[in-house]
């Protein structure tokens, strides 16, 4: 990719991020509810309240508050959480790995499952297998992630408790890890029993997040596969004597994957958005769950920091997808 293109993409990403910061900053301040009213003790005087407002800088005009915050952000300082009395960066740094591991695990599940059903239904197109998968996929697509989550909690957690439905790992296990990347660090340090326990805790929330995405990937990939399968180069591959499996994987999939990939990127950002409710349902200690607490407590610095974090994740995902698309397409790569 030419350097100027990368540069312009990066610039537009920064502009987007700035826009997000402005909008969120203003929104949380005009929305009803006040962080101060959440923290005052009974019997506090008006003077106490005014002093608290001044302490958090909430007495200044909104635009002035914004520039102060923006200057802090540029210096890598997201302020202090009002409700948790800790640095926002510290709090997010502790919770983010849990969400990243959950989202990536869910994404991997969705890609594998979606890719699998697309390939199977393309291979057996016109047969009952295709119709069965299409119908099944329709159901998966129609049910949103939080309904899956609630259903899993009810069925697999309460009625037939086969899997954990709360938390990230069994609190009685102390793996003695130094980072919050439980799976990554656990694997690197060979603590497989612990990783297994973490995966079991992750499985249900990840399924809830992955099901709708798998259905979207499966449907789009199958449609593009069907378009590709009638191309002459597929016929040519048959004439050359390639086996059906190799035609599917080697000739068709790479061409069909590009449109599906772009869509997967967009849908993955929805999945990350879905972690907010899903983490809540499974009491999973990630930034999604944290965001709900922050909103309930009107913890303005924390809300701002979280939105900024989500914004950075979304923009990174989009840039990665763009880069992958170019890399997979020789027509763009050699442009």
């Amino acid at each position: 990719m030419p350097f100027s293109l990368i540069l312009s993409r990066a610039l537009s990403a920064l502009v987007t991020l700035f826009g997000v910061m402005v909008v969120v900053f203003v929104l949380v301040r005009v929305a009803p509810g006040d962080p101060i009213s959440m923290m005052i003790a009974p019997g506090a005087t008006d003077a106490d309240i005014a002093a608290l407002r001044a302490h958090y800088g909430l007495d200044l005009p909104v635009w002035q508050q914004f520039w102060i915050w923006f200057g802090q952000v540029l210096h890598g300082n997201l302020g202090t959480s009002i409700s948790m009395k800790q640095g926002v960066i510290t709090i997010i740094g502790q919770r983010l790995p849990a969400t990243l591991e959950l989202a990536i695990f869910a994404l991997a599940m969705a890609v594998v499952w979606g890719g699998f059903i697309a390939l199977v239904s393309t291979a057996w197109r016109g047969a009952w297998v295709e119709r069965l998968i299409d119908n099944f996929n329709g159901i998966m697509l129609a049910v949103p992630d939080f309904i899956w989550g609630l259903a899993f909690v009810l069925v697999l957690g309460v009625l037939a408790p086969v899997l954990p439905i709360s938390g990230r790992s069994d609190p009685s296990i102390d793996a003695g890890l130094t980072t919050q990347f439980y799976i990554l660090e656990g694997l690197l340090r060979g603590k497989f029993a612990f990783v297994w326990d973490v995966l079991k805790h992750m499985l249900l929330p990840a399924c809830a997040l992955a099901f709708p995405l798998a259905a979207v990937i499966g449907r789009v990939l199958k449609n593009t596969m069907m378009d590709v399968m009638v191309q002459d180069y597929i016929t040519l591959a048959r004439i050359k004597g390639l086996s059906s499996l190799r035609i599917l994987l080697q000739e068709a999939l790479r061409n069909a994957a590009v449109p599906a990939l772009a869509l997967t990127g967009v849908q993955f950002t929805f999945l990350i958005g879905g972690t907010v409710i899903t983490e809540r349902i499974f009491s999973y200690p990630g930034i999604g769950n944290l965001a709900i607490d922050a909103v309930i407590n009107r913890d303005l610095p924390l809300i701002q920091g979280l939105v900024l974090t989500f914004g950075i994740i979304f923009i990174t995902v989009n840039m990665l997808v763009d880069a992958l698309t170019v890399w997979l397409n020789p027509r763009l790569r050699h442009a």
Partner: protein
Amino acid sequence: MTLIEARNISLDVPDMSHQALIGQRRKLRILKNVSLSLKKGETVGLVGESGSGKTSLGRCLLRLHEPSEGTLAFDGQDITHASPAQLKPLRRRMQMIFQDPQSSLNPRHTIGSILATALKLNELDAGETSIAAILGRVGLPASASRRYPHQLSGGQRQRVGSALAVALKPEFVVADEIVSGLDVSTQAQVLDLLKGLRDEMGLALAFISHDLSVVRSLCERVVIMKNGEIVEEGLTADVFANPKTGFTRTLIASIPLPEVRPGWLDQ
């Protein structure tokens, strides 16, 4: 000696415009009772309007479509309902050159890798020199093997299509409107190439075209198709000299050039 023989072939496809609520989709018959045979080294022109079933017939002859009725034999072997495994050893011996070389070359593979896969699958030498020789034979530089399809011109892509077909040393080739997208001088070059390859290798050639002037210069026999049926067939010279049906007469009258000397390509 008959190489390929189709007898009373019909082909049904699912009718996409008609969605049945229950059960099978309605069928659409796109080839009706077609019989055609080719001897070794013989060239037959398949002519007809767009949508008359020329491509479908060509694909049937290569057993890319399974005929719904009738029989199909290649080199004495009945392949009407042969399985992919049974067809595999025959695949190399019957090839196709496509109408649109843009869509017949996978955009994600280089020319060299497209050729190499074809050669390797059929246990032929896929070395660099062998690929360079094949490209050379169709008038392309050896450097073309590192190019992607979109980096070649239309005429060059069509040469790659021919290169692919002949690299496998087939006995039967279906050439489907291979010059219709090219300008006149490139057309002449590609046709010239095809002629040379045919004569050199003793190919049986089914040459599909809606352009009668080209067919006249290339084919000993011609088959005129309309609505999935053969309406007239015979030696090219006879059909041109006295067409039996009004349809053929109209086709001849619609030849774009006022008059073409037979053999203009040889000069």
